């Protein structure tokens, strides 16, 4: 890094201020909701009166446990499928640099450019009219996978790009067949990236509203429960729900961060 000239200092100060404001903007609402979830006077929580009431109410809220479980199932299903397809595709694209692999990369990134709403309603139409299956968890999983596959693909691609494929070649020279090679050489080195993609897909599927909504009909998931509640005006249980979900997400993200650092360590590369 070049040394900083005096002229640059004011620019950096301005940029830092903007960045800090951005973090404030992004995180303040989350913390505020967390604060609200613990306040009895949730409309105007000053001065603060502490209570667990909303969390207790959340537990007994109808559908809460069902919704939690369904969200979990959808998230897991999405994660498994996405991780599988994304890993295979990322390996294929990076290991075999064919001329038109750009097109294949494009296919895997296409879902990012289709609005979630469109994915939701189109799969709804498709399931109903072509496949003639009602909305259910399975179709929600599939629809979510279509969307989160792109994210998973990007996450693995970013990490895998630094993998030295000559290791695979070495293994092959010493007699390892492809699957064996993957199991013994490739995977042990890339599993942090794969797990990271898994977790991202889980989170996306768990929290998804717009795609899942059109696909699950009456089956409750956490986001659809929140939606139902919201339509009647805000109830404080929602804050408790939001805080619980946020905590879960941040715990998982922290895990992903550790995995990425681990991944960089494993590939023995300098920190970014």
């Amino acid at each position, binding site marked *: 890094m*070049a*040394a900083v*000239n*005096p*002229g640059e200092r004011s620019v950096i100060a301005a940029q830092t201020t903007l960045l800090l404001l951005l973090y404030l903007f992004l995180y303040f609402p989350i913390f505020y909701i967390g604060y609200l979830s613990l306040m009895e006077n949730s409309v105007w929580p000053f001065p603060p009166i502490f209570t667990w009431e909303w969390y207790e109410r959340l537990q007994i809220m109808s559908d809460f446990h069902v919704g939690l479980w369904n969200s979990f199932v959808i998230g897991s299903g999405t994660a498994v499928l996405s991780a599988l397809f994304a890993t295979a595709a990322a390996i294929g694209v990076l290991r075999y640099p064919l001329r038109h692999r750009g097109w294949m990369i494009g296919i895997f990134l296409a879902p990012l450019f289709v609005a979630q709403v469109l994915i939701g309603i189109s799969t709804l139409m498709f399931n109903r009219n072509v496949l003639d299956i009602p909305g259910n968890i399975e179709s929600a999983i599939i629809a979510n996978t279509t969307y989160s596959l792109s994210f998973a693909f990007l996450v693995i691609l970013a990490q895998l790009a630094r993998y030295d494929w000559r290791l695979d070649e070495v293994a092959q020279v010493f007699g390892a067949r492809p699957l064996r090679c993957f199991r013994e050489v490739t995977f042990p080195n890339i599993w942090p990236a794969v797990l990271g993609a898994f977790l991202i897909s889980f989170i996306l599927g768990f929290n998804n509203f717009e795609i899942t909504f059109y696909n699950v009909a009456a089956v409750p998931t956490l986001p659809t429960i929140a939606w139902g509640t919201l339509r009647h005006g805000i109830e404080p249980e929602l804050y408790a729900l939001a805080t619980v979900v946020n905590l879960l997400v941040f715990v998982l993200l922290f895990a992903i961060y550790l995995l990425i650092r681990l991944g960089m360590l494993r590939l023995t590369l300098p920190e970014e």
Partner: protein
Amino acid sequence: MSEPAVLQIEEVEKRFGAVEAVKGISLEIAKGEFFALLGPSGSGKTTLLRILSGLETPNRGRVSIGGVEVTGLPPYLRRIGMVFQDFLLFPHRTVAENIIFPLRMQGMTPAQQKEQLDWILDFVHMVGLDERFPHQLSGGQKQRVALARGLVSRPELLLLDEPLANLDRELRKEMEVEVRRFQEELGIPFVYVTHNQEEALTMSDRVAVLYRGQIEQVGPKLEVYNQPATRFVASFVGAPNKMTGRVTACEAGRLEIDWDGLSLIAQAKEGMASGDLVEIYLKSERIALSVSQDSPQWEGGSENRLEGSVRDIIFKGQFADYLVRVGAGAELVVSAPPALPGIARGASVQLSWSDQAADVFKAPPGDGS
């Protein structure tokens, strides 16, 4: 110097945190000069160049270009050109657009730009390639474009930061000649940073040898080559043989040195006395090589003579390096024409050099050998 100075550097210092990269350097560079800043990595030469360009500001000292003080002025207000080590051509611009960039920044009209572009393309022999993009060019072509971009606005000074480092050997030799030609034909002073002393000696008029942020020696290149002023310059320039020995006698400006059991004579420098540990730097081309003779040993006089045997001969084209084992296992490298009659691997040979041929310096304290 007969010409007035174009570049004046006065007591320039630069530190980065606790590290002093440049410690009090002063230099003057004249109009038609090809000036080399030579030194190993970490010697401060690149930092100095960046200070000249305005990309760094010195903590102390002044820089003047064309008589005008420019210390503290940003680069875009100085009338300089620069060539970077990795070429650093704009990848999103064609050759022509890269070259006219400085002209556009100066506000020249398109007609003037075209005129200058045509002239410089012809000058660097890149006519016809102006619509190409950098990634379509070879290393040597990229280098020419970088030079063209640096020279097109006819700056007062051209700064070059190890521009040939990324070229292969053959190309480098070719470009050394070319760059020298550019400088001579344009008459613009070049300040050329390099760690390659061969390059510096081939191309420059004057050389400044830098080490650890300070100037070890400044002068015409032959002077720096033949009469190194400090131990570092002697060791860095010319790839000499290095011998460490102890002074056994010192009188009338003449030293007798014990080197690994062999007795050598050399010119004394001020402050040397018997018992001192010294380093002797002897350039390999200053040693004469001949077949061993049975004639009696030379006694006294002003020549060193050693018997040895040829351990290996490394062919280098016009010359060869003869690795000759002498004494109890020490080795000297002698540069001489290849295929000398009677001298092959294992041959017994005689080495000789005058007592003025070597440069002797006191060994730095703490040097174990």
